[in-house]
């Protein structure tokens, strides 16, 4: 080797040595060398410095080992021996006691080089201290740690990591990232991956995730997983990632419970069937659920502008405020009251209010909790019920003339109104609970009715059943009975029996009895009146018989004798006395005939029938055709053919005949005579008018006597004054009327009205 080249090499070596020493210095790295054969040791300055021995200290193997903490001496010795014998290198971290008796941490490495061991020696106390600190932090915070080589998948977990999920590291070995994947909740993996990627893409610095892991026991453990990429590959990929696992199960469970209870409360509050509200200490609405808003008609926003005082009925406010005060001062912890709110519309809302208070630790009111139930319907029902009860009571009380007695199904009296008290003379308390029929009914009467009913329904009906059987089977049951008063006297009643039902089930009976004593009396009177009338009718009948038979018989006898006399003694018959006798008998016969006709009208019991007016008129016109021709009177029948009246055929015939013959008889000789017959419907009646242009009647003079018996108004041979009397009687007996309008020498109109 040329000299300058050697120089150059020497220079280079020096440079290298300088650098090496500098490095040793900078890293506080010492170098040691052991001659295996002689146990002689050579130290660099730094080694001396670490051992805190002076430069003149002469170390050897034994001395060097002596410096180590007794716990480490066997380890160090074994490592050196193994290295010397087998050439196995070592790297130890041990505690060492310096010459100045300081306990320090050192890192010692050794390597066999030929017949020597060469190694480094380094004071790592500071590093170790921070490591211990770090460890104790980790242990103190009870977190599991993990290291992950993102590229290879290699992972390292600490014991705590395994412990969180109930394992030891040994049980989990061999660990890899797969170990985590298996234990993680499948639902969380995706999100975990997303967040990791965010770190890998450097979008976020830290990976943070609350995730679930499967515990060895099978339950899920909540873990707060956090970490950070510490090393990157040269091409920017994540390499090493470190992180921790913190068991947050307890917190999570607490949170969940809280959430559930909060949700439950909120659900309760919002959807409660009753109104719920929070108010501050001044009564201002803080919170109100939908039900409250519905009750009072305000929206939540409107409500929050108000206090409950604004809405409370003034009459209820003092009570409410009084109770609230007691709540505030701690006299009570809740109160309940019925009160009234004003609805937004102005109407009153009845509510049931329950208020409790929530205070803070200092005892100040935080808010009032109100539970509000709308009881308007109940109040209204209550009011209606009260009204119904009142009016029912009023009816019961007012019915002084009517006895109202209610019984149960067996006939025991359950109600006895004031009318019953008055009529029967018992006091309510005397009869309530007593068997009803025995008390106030006639035994014979009940037995008689019982027999009749038993026969009618073909089964035995007796006792109380006698009163209610028909009611029970739905037959209307109103009958006359005799009630017996407390004092033994009796009176007739009309008793209606009805059922009292509760949801379609008969629970009792209600008997409403009307005192019909007066009615009975009147009935009796009417009956006796009827008897009198019947008697009188009978007498009239007898009279009619006398008229129709006896009188006629005698008058006909007389006239027969006179006729015979005239035949036997024609010359004597011409005597004036005889002709008077003959006239007298003729008049008598006629009178008897008339009377007979009149009596017939009143006694006849012929049935009415629907009769066509036109036909009857025409029949009479035909039968009178001879007279009509002779007298040259024009009869104008304009009656419609389908008009009919309800009448007794013989009467109608007689009436029409009378009308037509009257018109003929009393026609005027001074002019061409006519009779106009018309008919009109008038509601339920038909009127038939007979209008003539005859002599007329002076109604001023005769009006009130026109239809009287034996009243004649014409100086006429044939007028006897019976026809109109009978006609009127006949018309009236059929429910009709007759009216007349007349003027002397102009004509007469008779208007007859008969039922349709």
């Amino acid at each position, binding site marked *: 080797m040329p000299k300058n080249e050697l120089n150059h090499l020497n220079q280079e070596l020096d440079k290298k040595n300088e650098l090496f020493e500098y490095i040793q210095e900078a890293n506080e790295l010492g170098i040691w060398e052991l001659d295996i054969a002689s146990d002689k040791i050579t130290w660099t300055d730094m080694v001396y410095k670490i051992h805190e021995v002076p430069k003149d200290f002469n170390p050897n193997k034994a001395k060097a080992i002596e410096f180590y903490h007794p716990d480490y001496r066997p380890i160090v010795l074994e490592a050196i021996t193994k290295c010397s014998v087998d050439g196995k290198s070592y790297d130890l971290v041990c505690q060492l006691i310096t010459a100045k008796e300081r306990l320090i941490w050192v890192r010692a490495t050794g390597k066999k080089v030929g017949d020597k061991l060469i190694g480094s020696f380094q004071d790592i106390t500071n590093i170790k201290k921070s490591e211990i600190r770090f460890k104790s932090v980790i242990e103190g915070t009870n977190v599991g740690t993990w290291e992950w080589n993102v590229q290879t998948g290699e992972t390292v977990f600490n014991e705590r990591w395994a412990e969180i999920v109930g394992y030891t590291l040994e049980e989990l070995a061999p660990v890899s990232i797969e170990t985590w994947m298996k234990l993680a909740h499948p639902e969380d993996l995706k999100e975990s991956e997303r967040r990791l990627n965010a770190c890998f893409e450097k979008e976020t610095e830290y990976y943070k995730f609350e995730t679930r892991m499967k515990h060895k026991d099978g339950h899920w453990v909540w873990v707060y997983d956090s970490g950070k990429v510490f090393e990157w590959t040269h091409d920017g990929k994540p390499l090493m990632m470190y992180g921790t696992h913190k068991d947050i199960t307890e917190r999570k469970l607490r949170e969940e419970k809280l959430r559930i209870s909060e949700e439950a409360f909120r659900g309760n509050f919002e959807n409660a069937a009753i109104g719920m509200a929070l108010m501050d200490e001044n009564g201002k609405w803080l919170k109100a659920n939908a039900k409250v808003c519905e009750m009072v008609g305000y929206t939540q926003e409107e409500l929050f502008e108000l206090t409950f005082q604004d809405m409370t009925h003034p009459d209820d406010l003092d009570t409410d405020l009084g109770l609230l005060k007691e709540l505030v001062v701690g006299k009570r912890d809740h109160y309940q009251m019925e009160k009234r709110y004003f609805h937004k519309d102005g109407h009153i809302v009845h509510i049931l209010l329950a208020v409790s208070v929530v205070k803070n630790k200092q005892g100040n009111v935080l808010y009032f909790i109100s539970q509000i139930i709308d009881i308007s319907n109940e109040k209204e029902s209550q009011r209606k019920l009260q009204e119904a009860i009142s009016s029912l009571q009023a009816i019961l009380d007012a019915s002084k003339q009517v006895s109202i007695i209610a019984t149960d199904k067996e006939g025991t009296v359950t109600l006895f109104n004031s009318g019953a008290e008055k009529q029967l003379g018992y006091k309510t308390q005397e009869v309530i609970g007593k068997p009803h029929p025995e008390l106030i009914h006639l035994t014979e009467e009940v037995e008689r009715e019982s027999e009749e009913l038993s026969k009618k329904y073909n089964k035995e009906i007796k006792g109380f059943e006698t009163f209610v059987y028909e009611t029970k089977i739905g037959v209307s049951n109103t009958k006359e009975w005799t009630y017996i008063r407390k004092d033994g006297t009796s009176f007739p009643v009309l008793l209606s029996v009805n059922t009292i039902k509760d949801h379609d089930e008969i629970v009792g009976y209600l008997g409403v009895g009307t005192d019909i004593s007066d009615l009975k009396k009147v009935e009796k009177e009417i009956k006796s009146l009827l008897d009198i009338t019947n008697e009188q009718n009978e007498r009239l009948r007898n009279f009619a018989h006398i008229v*129709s*038979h*006896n009188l*006629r*018989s005698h008058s*006909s*006898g007389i*006239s*027969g*004798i006179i*006729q*015979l006399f005239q*035949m036997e003694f024609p010359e004597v018959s011409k005597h004036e006395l005889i002709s008077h006798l003959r006239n007298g008998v003729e008049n008598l016969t006629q009178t008897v*005939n008339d009377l*007979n006709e009149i009596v*017939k009208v009143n006694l006849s019991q012929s049935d009415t029938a629907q009769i066509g007016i036109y036909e009857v008129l025409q029949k009479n016109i035909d039968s009178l055709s001879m007279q009509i021709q002779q007298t040259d009177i024009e009869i104008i029948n304009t009656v419609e053919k389908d008009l009919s009246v309800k009448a007794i055929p013989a009467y109608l015939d007689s009436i029409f005949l009378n009308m037509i013959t009257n018109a003929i008889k009393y026609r005027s000789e001074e002019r061409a005579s006519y009779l106009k017959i018309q008919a009109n419907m008038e509601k339920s009646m038909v009127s038939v008018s007979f209008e003539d242009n005859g002599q007329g009647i002076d109604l001023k003079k005769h009006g009130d006597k026109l239809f009287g018996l034996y009243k004649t108004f014409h100086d006429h041979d044939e007028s006897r004054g019976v026809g109109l009397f009978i006609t009127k009687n006949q018309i009236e007996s059929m429910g009709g009327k007759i009216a007349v309008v007349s003027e002397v020498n102009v004509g007469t109109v008779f208007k007859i009205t008969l039922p349709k």
Partner: protein
Amino acid sequence: MKKIDLACIVEDDPVQLFITRKYIELSGFVEKTLAYKNGKEAYTSLKAMFLNNEKLPQIIFLDLNMPVWDGWKFLDEFTQIPIEQGGAIYILTSSNHEDDIQRAEKYGLKNNYLVKPIDLSQLNGILPKLVTN
């Protein structure tokens, strides 16, 4: 002139009996006239005649209102007698009552209903028919 052999009058009132008998006499159609005071008397006598096979009256004038048996009762009983060729019965009454006329119809005597007093023309309308028969 052929005559009716036997006529019969049932009548309680002597005046009426006299009149009827006189007119029958005056008509000159009748040989002999029997008279009874009431229905019962007439029935008893006529029945006895029937049983004795004597000739019965060809015409009977029957009053309605009579004591003991009235005209109706007589009709009820007399029509029970099984007479082969009975004479005509005429009701002769002072009653022109509708009820009586209707009742007469039930015995088929509506057209044989005469109201007193009877006169000669009425008799002359009835008797000749019986003679020719």
